[in-house]
């Protein structure tokens, strides 16, 4: 494919797609971790309240 070429191949779109996946998946994982932590903290507060009332 790249035989006899005199300039680098134009693969910019693939690089953008690659880094979109890399950053996108990492961001989704970070958000998921954050949401889980927030929900668990809320659950903990509710359960502590229930325990105190009992």
């Amino acid at each position: 494919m790249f035989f006899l070429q005199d300039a680098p191949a134009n693969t910019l779109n693939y690089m953008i797609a690659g880094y979109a996946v890399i950053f996108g998946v990492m961001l989704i994982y970070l958000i998921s971790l954050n949401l889980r932590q927030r929900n668990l903290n809320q659950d903990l507060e509710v359960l502590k309240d229930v325990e105190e009332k009992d």
Partner: protein
Amino acid sequence: MQTKPRLLTVLDFVTAALFVLAIGMVFFYAPLEAVMGQVQRVFYFHVAAGWVGMLSFLVAAIAGVVYLTSSNRKWDIVSLSAIEIGIVFAFINIVSGSIWARPIWNTWWTWDPRLTTATVMELIYAAYLMLRQGIEDPDRRARFGAVYAIVGFVSVPLTFFSARLFRTIHPIVIGTNQAGAEGDFDMTPMMLQTFMFSLLTFTFVFADLLWHRIRVGWLAEKVEQLRLKTIQ
């Protein structure tokens, strides 16, 4: 509410700074590869993500061994956390590799030994999460999980060495490429520096994420115990 350790905050900042620096090196410091063009830049984070995936599975296997010898549930949380992170980064590695392959190999996917073993490895660890979902008893779940993390680790060296043991078109970063390898290139010193820095950065990302994920695991454990106490 858990209080965040100061060291974790420091680690967050250091990791974020390293990550920004690594992005800067990938896009502005590393030179443009003469044949592949811009898509070669995917290589730096593609390999680093693969490294984190394998490192995570190693940590999970070690935590599995420690759990089996100590029966301390905190090691089960470490193992689960490492595997979850490993799955995320192995996924990044596979998908970014596929995107790189499209212009270089002229195909999104081929059942090459390296690609196949990497996918099998990912599926093995995805099955680990399913196995855990199917077991109610926490101690049994931890025991089964530990054994699975240890046995599943066999897939990691198999994936790593697959490009060296079998006929493959996948380039080898460290060592000699096979004759049929396509998309290999000679790294200039600046490329090598960027590559090594990316590996270091992703190691920090792994440590930081693992710490955060372990904290979530601890919290889940605490909530579960409190819930059981409230029900009784």
